[in-house]
């Protein structure tokens, strides 16, 4: 499945959007302008981008605490996201949710999630709703290597398979759950091997290769749309930053980081695009400029937006 040019360009845009968005947050967090925690997606852009490029607007995703990339890749609005992370009333959640709870149901985004493994059960529900309503939509559930050990994740894999739900589990294996390396949290090397426990296909892909992710997820989405049930795609990747901003990251070594920074998914993809003639160097630069501008606008929007008023505190508890 080779994506068409439009898709390729969109992927390139998306990856850059995530990269620049996260870098902005890194700076603003360091400057003390962002409340709470942020978990940045830097280095993992290819996973969200590749996976969401395999989806239509009507398809759905559940995300994680490290959700900005997923949300942007699924079409999340830069301004509304930025404003939310800045705690402003104009944000996606009116300032009530923050980085870990951004959602856009209209775009099929069932929310970032502060609970590791929390998205799996919700994803089964979204996928079941599609099936029940014969809606032909697919749900992608993003989850980390750490989350793969949480019982809720495993229950979700099981239900999805027992019920043949149109659900694709995209595992982002960045090697760590906070400070805990994968080898200490589980005995297996490939999380994809867990798929067999639920009789679903399990595939390992290079998570820093956006096309590889796209291809594997597209395949799984096709299966899901055909009523053949769920799949598990493990994307091996790495997070460049600490678990959250402020994490000194003493548990990893510089060599490991350097090695992975060398596998930066964006230049790799750009090189391919340029080589294949899909995008010229100049076009690539123009895209980057445009996105940088959009992000500046989002920052301006966020910073100029008011904070919510305490009188709004009790709104939206009930429907």
């Amino acid at each position, binding site marked *: 499945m080779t994506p068409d040019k439009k898709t390729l360009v969109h992927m390139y845009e998306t990856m850059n959007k995530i990269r620049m968005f996260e870098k902005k947050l890194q700076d603003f967090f360091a400057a003390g302008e962002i409340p709470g925690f942020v978990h940045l997606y830097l280095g993992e852009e290819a996973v969200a981008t590749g996976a969401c490029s395999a989806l239509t607007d009507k398809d759905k995703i559940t995300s994680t605490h490290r959700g900005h990339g997923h949300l942007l890749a699924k079409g999340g609005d830069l301004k509304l996201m930025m404003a939310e992370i800045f705690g402003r009333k104009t944000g996606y959640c009116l300032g009530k949710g923050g980085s870990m709870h951004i959602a856009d149901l209209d775009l099929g985004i069932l*929310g970032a999630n502060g609970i590791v493994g929390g998205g799996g*059960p919700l994803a089964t529900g979204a996928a*079941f*709703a599609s099936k029940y309503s014969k809606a032909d939509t697919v749900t992608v559930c993003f989850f980390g290597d750490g989350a793969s050990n949480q019982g809720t994740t495993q229950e979700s894999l099981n*239900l999805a398979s027992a019920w043949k739900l149109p659900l694709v589990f995209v595992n982002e294996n960045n090697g760590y759950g906070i400070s805990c390396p994968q080898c200490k949290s589980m005995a297996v090397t490939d999380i994809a091997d867990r798929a067999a426990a639920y009789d679903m296909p399990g595939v390992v892909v290079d998570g820093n290769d956006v096309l590889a992710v796209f291809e594997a997820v597209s395949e799984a989405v096709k299966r899901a749309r055909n009523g053949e049930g769920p799949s598990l795609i493990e994307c091996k990747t790495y997070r460049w930053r600490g678990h959250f901003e402020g994490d000194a990251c003493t548990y990893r070594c510089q060599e490991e980081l350097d090695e992975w920074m060398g596998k930066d998914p964006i230049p790799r993809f750009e090189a391919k695009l340029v080589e294949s003639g899909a995008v010229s160097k100049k076009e690539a630069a123009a895209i980057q400029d445009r996105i940088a501008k959009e992000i500046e606008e989002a920052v301006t929007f966020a910073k100029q937006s008011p904070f919510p008023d305490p009188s709004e505190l009790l709104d939206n*508890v009930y*429907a």
Partner: protein
Amino acid sequence: MPEKTYLQALNEALRQEMERDEKVFIMGEDVGQFGGCFGVTQGLFEKFGEERVRDTPITESVIVGCAAGAAASGLRPVAELMFVDFIGVAMDQLFNQAAKMRFMFGGKATVPMTLRMPQGAGIGAAAQHSQSLEAWFMHIPGLKVVIPSTPYDAKGLLISAIRDDSPTVFLEHKMLYGVSGEVPDEAYAIELGKADVKREGSDVTIVATSLMVHTALAAAEKLKADGIEAEVVDPRCLNPLDKYTIIESIKKTNALVIAHEAVQYAGPGAEIAAMAAEEALDYLDAPIKRVGAPFCPVPFSPPLEKAYIPDADDIVAAVKSIR
């Protein structure tokens, strides 16, 4: 009006709502052909088929989470946990996901799910199959908590819970399933958050829930023999709580006793007592008494279980200590 059991009333509510609205479906362990552990979903599988009456694996987290996700995606799930005691493996999906989603997302999600759970002791099912856990659910902003005591209330409140757009916990008492009462054949809704005065009286207000409503009514009959007229108020919902009806009753009787089967310490009655001590203290001429389970797990052996469950004499004694 026809007589039906609490169980039949619930079953009828489910059937009628499923007929009315295609978006309503049922999920849980053994709710299909088996008809549910206590029989509440009997016949629905045959009538609506397995797409709409869905047996799940033993996977409570996913039962609750799948319901929440499906609700946020436009359906109206009615999920069942076989016993409320099993919520411990699924609490996260209830309190951090279903209940908070709407608020966290700035009002952009609607989660019209109902979670039915049988509660209570009385069948020798011991410590892990006999609890009453409504106090936990009351403490969760975003949830509604319904706890019917009669067949009539059970049907009308379940219909309302299903139609309600917020996630609702619906707590049935297993000793009530066989209790009969008048229940209209047609569908009807009882507003959530409206108490019902099950007996009028002038001398003491007994706020009681679930099975304890019946125990309180029995106690009231005993008290009547001693010239004490008890008013029995059944809140029917613990969230929203109908403070108004409770306080109006206190204004009339000037005394409050609260009866529930849950463990008394930090139980549902604590909130009702605290509310009264804050908002109606001037009308109270005696200490507020609570009658609830003692501070221990539910024991197995019949004489211990009997001692554990508050009875009419316990309520009578509480009333007599202040009246």
